[in-house]
């Protein structure tokens, strides 16, 4: 188990629990009372910690190394899934994965950012930071979905689009812009889920849809708290403050009307019960696709555009 800084009080309790269990095993002593007491303590402490997370703590949880990523969800949710590779123009981006599969008897196209589960794979996945060909692969798959009338599900989890030299050469900005343009008119339903980090244009590049959801311990912002700190405070030390100022939590996003719903996670975060969060997501997708299935596609697109057209806060002077 990996404990984040604010989870340290839990680490001690878990250590005690381990010790007691060890004693019980070694000496064949009945410790059930003691174990029950400790477990109660842990549950109470968890409730205290996780019900009052700050923006920065949500950011930390969203980056938890044991958190499930796109391929975990796909594997857990799909009866059948075939990953499809490449943008047909330049290459295959490993930071965005996608393919065709069946969830709850419905054929769908699923696309998501992919992070690596260990040091080597983190490199291989470029830390979930996509290049233009990732966004173009995503678009190719969305067009495929449109042709065969399959709904699109996107899973968002990125610290941002990759800010590299080649990414610029190959048109990172154009790739993201094109996706926004095409997704606005895509003639199938689109569901978007923020399952981890929702950083900036790199997240939005596969994030325009009919319904937008955020898991409980995720964030969505125009910029990461670290970069925001470095630009606006001219120092890397204000990331916590930046996270607060950016109001990037799911609760804020819901309050602002920028997302439709928050998906509850197991206590302590999605990684604490992967089976449970996969089941939650699967049944949520089923419910939402059912809701959208009866809609006329032209109406759906009109509503999609109208929803984004409404986003913005300003005053109208007389």
């Amino acid at each position, binding site marked *: 188990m990996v404990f984040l800084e604010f989870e340290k009080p839990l680490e001690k309790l878990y250590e005690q629990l381990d010790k007691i269990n060890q004693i019980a095993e070694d000496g064949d002593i009945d410790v059930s009372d003691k174990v029950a007491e400790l477990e109660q303590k842990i549950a109470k402490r968890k409730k205290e910690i996780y019900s009052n997370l700050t923006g920065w703590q949500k950011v930390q949880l969203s980056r938890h190394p044991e958190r499930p990523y796109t391929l975990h969800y796909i594997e857990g949710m799909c009866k059948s899934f075939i990953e499809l590779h490449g943008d047909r123009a330049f290459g295959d981006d490993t930071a965005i994965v996608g393919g065709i599969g069946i969830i709850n008897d419905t054929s769908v196209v699923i696309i998501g950012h992919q992070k690596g589960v260990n040091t080597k794979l983190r490199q291989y996945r470029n830390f979930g930071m996509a290049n233009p060909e990732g966004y173009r692969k995503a678009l190719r798959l969305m067009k495929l979905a449109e042709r065969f009338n399959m709904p699109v599900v996107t899973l968002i989890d990125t610290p941002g689009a990759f800010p590299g030299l080649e990414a610029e050469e190959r048109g990172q*900005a154009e790739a993201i812009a094109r996706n926004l343009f095409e997704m606005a008119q895509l003639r199938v339903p689109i569901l978007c889920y923020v399952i981890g980090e929702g950083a900036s244009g790199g997240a939005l590049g596969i994030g325009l849809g009919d319904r937008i959801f955020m898991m409980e311990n995720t964030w*969505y912002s125009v910029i990461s708290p670290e970069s925001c700190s470095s630009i606006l405070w001219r120092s890397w030390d204000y990331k916590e403050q930046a996270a607060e100022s950016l109001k990037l939590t799911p609760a804020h*996003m819901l309050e602002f009307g920028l997302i439709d719903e928050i998906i509850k996670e197991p206590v302590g975060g999605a990684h604490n019960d992967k089976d449970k969060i996969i089941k939650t997501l699967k049944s949520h997708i089923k419910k939402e696709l059912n809701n959208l299935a009866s809609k006329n596609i032209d109406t759906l697109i009109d509503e999609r555009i109208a929803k984004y057209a409404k*986003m913005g806060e300003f005053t*109208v002077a007389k």
Partner: protein
Amino acid sequence: MGWFKRFTDGIQTATKNKKEAPDGLWHKCKSCNETFTFKELKDNFFICPKCDYHNRIGSHDYFDLIFDGKFHLHFEELKSKDFLSFTDLKPYDERLTAAKEKTGLGDAITVAEGKVAKKTLVVAAMDFTFIGGSMGSVVGEKISRGIDLALSLKCPFMIISKSGGARMMESAFSLMQMAKTSAKLTLLAKAGLPYFSFMTDPTTGGVTASFAMLGDVNFSEPKALIGFAGPRVIKETIKKDLPEGFQRSEFLLEHGFLDFIVHRSELQKRMKELMLIFKKDNQTTPTEAQQTA
């Protein structure tokens, strides 16, 4: 010839944003260090007579340059507000007040309607002097309403980009303006109305990654910085020096992201050509063409 008229007839539209200074004042070129009088510079479209450096100019300067003469401003009543109570080193509220005072502008974009080659055009032009031309709710809303205006007038739409990217003080709202503007642009495409995207120095971040790159025709001024990530961020990421001319207009043209580069002195002529070529009464309208296809 609005550009010249303004200097011979005096000020037509009062705004502090125009490059106004006594004619005799000296200006040192940022690029070649040569000095010129303000008059020499403005008579040359604020382009350095020696090295061709295109000094940054404001929305109203472009309106004067592009439109046949008169133009009307729209949506000036829309004002940014600090709805998140965002405070970094300075409250956003204070930044807004200071920007308004400094520039005399309502926000980082101004929408105008006028004639080019006697045909109606709606132009949304950005101002870098207003909080770095950053895109917040008002920028998105003015573009959105500008598109609605072009739809109702059945005329082409143009955006002149000049922006450091998103306005961080509006957080996710500023991010969503990328989605909002891109989604609204699809309505122009559906209606068969052309959208011209003109990029000027600098055009970066969320602005490039949304409406700036989505023109039916994408073009820019020479040597403008155009990109997604800023050069400093890229340099820190790859830990290498960036090649000469990286992310400049000529680089984007070479890599296939611009249709052409236009010298500021040729802009008015080029806009007239575009307006004449994209005429409404061409043999088949785009919708008919789609139906027969």
